Every structure is written in structure tokens, then in C-alpha cells.
């Protein structure tokens, strides 16, 4: 990472490894697709 990039870092709001991991798990629980549809091809629509 360049020095310029380091200066732009937005710090994490959640501290501590366990809390961060729990936050990520909780974030994914917000999503409730109705069906098992693979949307990977919807991202820029190519080979993937």
C-alpha cells in the first residue's frame, strides 16, 4: 500500500477480532433471497 493510500484509511468502527467477525456474520443475515439463484453472473455479466 502506498503512503498516500495509507493516509486515506477510514478506521474500523468495530474493534476486536471476535466482534468484527460477529458483525460480518450479522451483516449477511440481512439478505433473504427467495430462491437459490446464483447472481454471480450478474456482476459485469461475464465468465467469472
Amino acid at each position, binding site marked *: 500500500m502506498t503512503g498516500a493510500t495509507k493516509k486515506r484509511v*477510514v478506521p474500523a468502527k*468495530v474493534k476486536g477480532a471476535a466482534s468484527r467477525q460477529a458483525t460480518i*456474520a450479522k451483516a449477511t443475515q440481512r439478505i433473504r433471497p427467495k430462491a437459490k439463484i446464483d447472481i454471480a453472473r450478474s456482476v459485469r455479466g461475464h465468465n467469472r
Partner: protein
Amino acid sequence: MPARGRPPATRQVFSFSDSSLVLPEAVVVDTSFVVEVLSPTQPAHQAALAFAQRLAGADTTLVFNRLLELELDEAVYQLALKERHPKDWRRFRHDGRARRRANRLLTGFRAAWTEFLTAFDYVPYTVEEVADRVPELMIRYGFASYDAIHAATALDSGVSAIVAIDTAFAKLPQSRIAIYTDASRLSNCRRYRQVAAG
């Protein structure tokens, strides 16, 4: 029984399911990885989620281009269309009946992404910041323009790792960037790297 012979050359392409990986100090995240982490119905969701949690636990800084958020919106809108019209969803894009569901999904994904970011130090780039590098990357490596924006973000930030569920980034030289991807894309990424190196 241990595998016989020489292990395959990594070409700086690694599976994010590999528990022995040394995690990078900073990594560029591509939209394809974020979709996989946030949506529980994606095929590589569990592996991607576990890797994201490992990155967060290791204090890895995420670097991404804001284009990611727009690509996420588009993927989610298409999800709403596919839920309603599984077979012929493209034809129904403009009839408006999927918009209410799309709105709910978009709101959910945006909230999830915002919450996800709270667990990381991160550096957001804008498209404008890297746009000047895009034509060169397209010509030099054959990138599509949107892929080139994420690649340019990696090069501009000086970050030497990218996590993506996409083989396109294997066009970048292994001396410049390591790729973390899901196990099913490992051999293709390595093969593309070998071909690109000539």
C-alpha cells in the same frame, strides 16, 4: 497419503479456503467477492464469509472502488427480476413489477455492505481517480472496462493482493499482484497467468 511429485506452481493465485494462507496487510476487494459474502444463497458463500472473517480478524485493510457499490446494485436488481421471472427475466426488466422487491433487496444489500465495512479499516476509491489508467490496462491486458477499473484501483493504491471470484484478474502479472479466489477457479486463474506470462 501425501501427493506425489512437485506441488503445482502457485503463480501467486491462492484459494481463500486454504487455512494456511498468510493474510495480506491490505487487499483490494472485487464486487464478485462481496456478492458471495453478503448473499447466503451464493455457491461459495460459506468459504467467502469465512475468509472475510479471517481478514477482519487479521486487521487487513480493504481497498475498493466505489464502482463496486453500483455493480452490487445491478446484481441485486437482476436478482429481483430472476426471482419473479426465472426463465425470461431480461424481457421483463422494464415492466416495473419487480421494482418493489428490488427496492427491498437493494436496501438490504446496501445496509449489509455498510455494516460489513464497519468491521474493517478501508480505503474507498472513486472511478474518476483511476479512470485515466483504464485505456492502458484494456490495451495492455485485454481487460473489459469495468474490470480495468478494479485493476487500476489495485495498481494505483499500491496494494499487492486482490480477492475476486473472477478469473479476469489473472491477466495482471504475478510479480505485481496476488489473487485470492475460490477453490473452483484456482486452476483456471493459474493457467491464464501462465498464458499471459507467455
